[in-house]
């Protein structure tokens, strides 16, 4: 683990912001920290970044402090500096021995090569976000903490930031906080779900989606499909059959194993022509709502 906490707790007066959080972030992962607004994501990242102190608990970060980088949700810089100067300052502070050519390299990756000689005062929100990412990666960090990096951006800006984060996979461990679950599902491989300061789940996203969601199958048949509905409804391993249209069904089953073993046979026995069928993939949003509701 590159980051692990034990019993991490943060109180603001009588308000408990974090409740005994045991975070485990595997080395090399892109870890999504998700939760509704006020769940404690920013507080948790702030404590890990050393910007806030914990009320109780321990933190272990297995990385050199100079190789840990943090990006706030709405990065801001001195408006009279140029984009290049901002990134160069970040380089010098992280490690002055890093070649200056690295500055141009990350500015190019962030799509700011053309704008880097202009002062930051004229940058759009998306450009500031990309400049923030460039300043964060210029020091070749081994651990990055990105607080809601895409939440304030338009779709194009969001796409650019997500692509930048995706490119970091394999180069560094990334902790990525967001309440946009689609973003987390797209770029993260591990996830921690926070609600009211409590870590409800953490682990691989694939485990979360398989382990938490009720296995569903989606069937597309040639009408009439009544025979199929009756046969499936009578099967002991089927929990429910829900017609979605004249030719579509959602079938909830008690286990994936039973469905894989019996579903094709039951359908074949009815004689109803099959167009397609397969497991209905659960989304992180469905699982998140299941866990947090």
């Amino acid at each position, binding site marked *: 683990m590159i980051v692990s906490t034990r019993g991490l707790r943060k109180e603001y007066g009588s308000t408990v912001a974090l409740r005994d959080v045991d975070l485990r972030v595997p080395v090399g992962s892109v870890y999504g920290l998700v939760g509704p607004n006020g769940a404690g994501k920013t507080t948790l990242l*702030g404590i890990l*970044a*050393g*910007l*806030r*102190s914990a009320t109780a608990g321990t933190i272990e970060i297995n990385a050199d*402090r100079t190789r*840990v*980088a*943090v990006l*706030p949700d*709405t*990065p*801001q*810089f*001195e408006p*009279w*500096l140029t984009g290049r*100067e901002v990134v*160069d*300052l*970040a380089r*010098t*502070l*992280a490690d*002055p021995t890093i070649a200056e050519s690295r500055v141009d390299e990350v500015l190019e990756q962030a799509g700011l090569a053309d704008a880097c000689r202009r002062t930051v005062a004229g940058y759009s929100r998306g450009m500031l976000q990309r400049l923030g990412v460039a*300043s964060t990666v210029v*020091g070749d960090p081994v651990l990055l903490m990105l607080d809601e990096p895409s939440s304030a951006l338009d779709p194009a800006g969001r796409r650019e930031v997500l692509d930048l984060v995706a490119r970091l996979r394999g180069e560094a461990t990334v902790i990525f906080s967001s309440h946009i679950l689609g973003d987390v599902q797209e770029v993260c491989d591990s996830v921690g779900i926070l609600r009211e300061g409590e870590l409800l789940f953490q682990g691989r996203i694939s485990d979360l989606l398989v382990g938490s969601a009720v296995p569903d199958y989606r069937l597309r048949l040639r009408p009439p499909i009544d025979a199929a509905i009756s046969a499936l409804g009578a099967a002991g391993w089927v929990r429910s059959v829900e017609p979605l249209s004249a030719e579509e069904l959602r079938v909830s089953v008690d286990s994936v194993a039973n469905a894989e073993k019996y579903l094709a046979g039951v359908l074949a026995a009815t004689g109803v022509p099959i167009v397609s069928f397969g497991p209905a993939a659960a989304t992180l949003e469905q699982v998140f709502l299941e866990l947090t509701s």
Partner: protein
Amino acid sequence: MNLWRLEWLRLVRTKRWLALLGVYVFFGLVGPLSARYLGEIVERFGGGVEVVFPPAVPADGMAQFVSNASQLGLLVAVTVAAGSLAFDAKPEMGVFLRTRVDRVGDILLPRLTVSFLAVGAAFVLGALGAWYETAVLIGGLPVGGTFAGIGYGLLYLSFVVALVAAAASRADNVLGAVLITVVVLLAMPMIGIVGSIGRWLPAHLVGALSGIPAGERIGEYVPAAGVTVVAVGLCLWLAVRWSEAREL
């Protein structure tokens, strides 16, 4: 680019150096002029009333400069220093710096140094301007005493910058840092009214540049200088301690 160059660029690109230099040099040139021609000025704008002033002496030229520089000049100096030292005023900028240094002192040192050098340089240039014009218009000032007065003035300004740093580490924004500093600076002369406390307070040093050329002993300001050195140390210690304790 490093934190020292960042402060230099802040001074140059935001034209803060111009504000500092402008206000101190302006008062440096205008102070002796108004001391020399005070009678004529009052007569011209006095509506025919004749006011008789004693002939101006060289110390009056410096006194006029000190009077103006210690008010408007000091306010500009405090504002410029606060703009630099309140580095958490925008938390996102604070995060950028704080997560990239080992100690908060690494951020504070260049800001304190450059702020003091800028304020000090403006004050010295203003004082030299006042000295020159006093010599031309009214008469010469004692060299040793004037330099001693400038030295005491610089010591006072170092206290002001350190005080701004301490205030900025508690305030949420630049305006808050300015207000806290101004309140403390205004409170000092009031406290000084009580008994002989005044000659021990940093604010006493403000008058050294006009007092010593007027005949006061250099040693008169030693107690205040000693207290100021201690106060500077205390303010810097508080600035570092409070900045480290601040949560973003």
